[in-house]
């Protein structure tokens, strides 16, 4: 039997000050980056405008040539970028972000695409470039979507809080949700730090991480619940520590395996899904960390604040019937 993490006895909870320091540093780095840059790098779906991917047949012009063509056609200040496939090869694909004036009305949503296409055809000849994809979003729509994304995340957190509070005790729900909220903030901070674009699929990744990170936390809390029932005399700190250690092999193994799968996605899934995969890669690391280093210490701190350091009861929940019957 290969065993990697058997019999580990680490005093996780005792290191809580160190963990909190690490979390605060991570959060502060993200915040400073965000303040310095002023705002997140939003995708076209959140800010409005036009982003296109264009493929050039031979001869492939360079970025400067394309810029000149676009400026001639009225699409000034456009951002042009070479795209590479997962193996790092350049195959004549460019990403163009239309930077010209867009009138404030939604009537002109597709104006950017038309101007860019016309400018490229005028300079390089019709049929020399091919639109691989184009995404245009009206200026008033982006703000709506941003607000909806924030609301969806908050509702999901609220739902999870209520669920865990019902199954355990409210403090466990609060600690789990706080840890997940921490994960979301840290991930967003890292996105800001690396100038990664935040778009709808990244929000999807964040919401998935919320579920995933809570998953890890629940596995630990579930063990705490079980241990509290059989070790009524032990103090909460040692029960929390033992529960983390007992589930540690599972936590590291599954996080490691899930990390492997999203790493495959990040490396081989192609450029379109890259930001999504990046969020997952970061989020799984942070999520695993926080379920050990943030959620459980919070439960302990709460019980200390209440004065006794005695275990907080978890048995608000009844066990599912199927489990009892067997």
């Amino acid at each position: 039997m290969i065993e990697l993490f058997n019999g580990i006895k680490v005093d996780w909870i005792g290191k809580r000050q160190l963990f909190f320091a690490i979390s605060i540093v991570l959060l502060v780095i993200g915040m400073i980056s965000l303040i310095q840059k002023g705002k997140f790098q939003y995708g076209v779906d959140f800010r409005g405008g036009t982003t296109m991917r264009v493929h050039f047949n031979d001869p492939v012009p360079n970025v400067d040539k394309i810029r000149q063509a676009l400026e001639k056609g009225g699409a000034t200040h456009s951002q042009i970028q070479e795209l590479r496939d997962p193996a790092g090869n350049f195959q004549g694909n460019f990403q163009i972000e239309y930077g010209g004036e867009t009138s404030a009305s939604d009537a002109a949503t597709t104006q950017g695409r038309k101007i860019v296409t016309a400018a490229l055809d005028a300079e390089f000849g019709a049929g020399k470039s091919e639109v691989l994809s184009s995404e245009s979003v009206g200026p008033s729509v982006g703000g709506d979507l941003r607000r909806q994304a924030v609301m969806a995340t908050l509702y999901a957190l609220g739902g999870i809080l209520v669920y865990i509070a019902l199954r355990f005790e409210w403090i466990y729900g609060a600690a789990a949700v706080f840890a997940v909220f921490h994960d979301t903030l840290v991930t967003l901070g890292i996105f800001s730090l690396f100038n990664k674009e935040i778009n709808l699929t990244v929000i999807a990744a964040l919401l998935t991480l919320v579920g995933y990170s809570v998953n890890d936390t629940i596995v630990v809390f579930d063990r705490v619940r079980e241990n509290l029932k059989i070790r009524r005399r032990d103090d909460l700190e040692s029960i929390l520590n033992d529960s983390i250690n007992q589930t540690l092999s599972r936590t590291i193994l599954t996080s490691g395996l899930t990390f492997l799968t999203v790493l495959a996605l990040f490396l081989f899934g192609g450029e379109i899904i890259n930001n999504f995969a990046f969020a997952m890669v970061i989020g799984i690391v942070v999520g695993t960390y926080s379920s050990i280093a943030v959620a459980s210490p919070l439960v302990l701190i709460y019980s200390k604040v209440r004065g006794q350091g005695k275990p907080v009861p978890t048995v608000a929940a009844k066990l599912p019937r199927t489990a009892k019957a067997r």
Partner: protein
Amino acid sequence: MSKRIRTRLIVIVVLTLLSVYLFSGFPPSIENMKKRINLGLDLQGGIQLVLRVKTSDAIRAETDQTIESVKTQLQKENITFGEMTRTQDDQITATGVDPSKSADFRRIITEVHPEWDVASSTGGGYTLQLKQAQAATYRQQSVDQAISTISNRINALGVTEPTIQRRGATTSDQILIQFPGVKDPARVEDIIQSTALLELKIVDGTGSFPSEEAAKASYGGVLPGDLESLPSIERSADGSPLYYVVHKTGGITGRDLKNAYVSRDPNNGRPAISFSLNSDGAKKFGSITERNVGKLLAIILDNRVQSAPVLHERIYDQGQITGSFTQKDADDLALKLRSGALPASISIDEETIVGASLGADSIKAGVTASLIALAAVLAFVLIYYKASGINAAIAMFLNLIVLLGAMAYLGATLTLPGIAGVILTIGVGIDSNVLIFERIREEMRAGKNAASAVLTSFNRVFITLVDTHLAALISATFLFLFGTGPVKGFAVTLVIGLVSNMFTAVFVSRTLFEIVLARKEVGESISI
């Protein structure tokens, strides 16, 4: 083999075969699979549009119609009044109504137009306000009508398998349109933009002006409140559009139109467009045209004058538009009038175009990433858990098969993020197995024999799995509610994956363990 195990095995085999059949048909083949799994636009290429219906147009049109109707009523009952104008989209102000006829005025409104509230101000002035509930109904109707009109048009043009539906709640004014495989955005936009707001209004004066300024100048610099100047598709010598000055009210809109078709001008045999009006429109149009014989009738699409033929006679429910049309012009205009009977104009909120080659690339990249992930995870569990790893691998494959089968059965759409969802399902699936296996190892270390370790572990871990899966379902559900297009596809994959994983991790994996245990001597260990 005990009866319990046999029953469980039958359930598993039947479900597996059913799933395989659902997503790949019989006999299973890649061709069948392509037919049965819906690919999202991001994978198969195509155009997606999110349109917004300018519902305030519909409200304004309703308000203008009410003004006309009230004016007619007042004249019929010989009630004098000063002016009656639309002061807001849903508000009418009337001035100088004969004070002695105040009760009559109110009676007309409450009887003929109960959807309006009346408030009076001093000196025979009144404000009419459209009731909120009624306005909401009009808005909703205008979106419904827009959807059916656009559907008709698109179906007439023969686009294959288009999606046309309201996006979001029933009060939403957005329409989602998807054209799989369509490559030409210009044509699609033409389809949408020619489904536009139609109005027939009386021209003030006898012809067009070379510019907007010239039009205003002829009225002393400022147009009177009930007139407006509109550009025409006709061009002056220098290429700029001509302008017409038309009466704001007293016309009819697209919703009064019943039909339009190409016909011939009886005088010279040239192509012309004949139209017919519904009964409401006919009544209104009859009285308008009677009063305006000899004047020009502006045919306006999207606030642009298409043509302004002379009204030769009073028109009831039939009319003919003549001019120097070519056959194609006439075809187009008839089509626009027919399907252009939209209650409001439409703007584009979002447009997404995905070329077929990019979609194919995405599928290739997604499949590659999935296979690599699968291989990595398989290699790990087989090395780490040995024989029990086979158990986990079978559970994982079954999970994928059930996931695909359920997606085919539900008609769910597989998108690029959806493929990511499949990969995550591999990860989450293996998580459940690791959770169980680690627990079994722990119980065995604590001295339990294999059989009782397996039993205890499954019972205990079942509770944990319910909690973790339900919590993940909560966030996936909000993702589903919030997301559209690719993101929704991701949420669907995730939800189905969570449910099927619950089945494979608990039911399938446990059955496999029981089979292994049944073949062993009591007290013999297992390979884990």
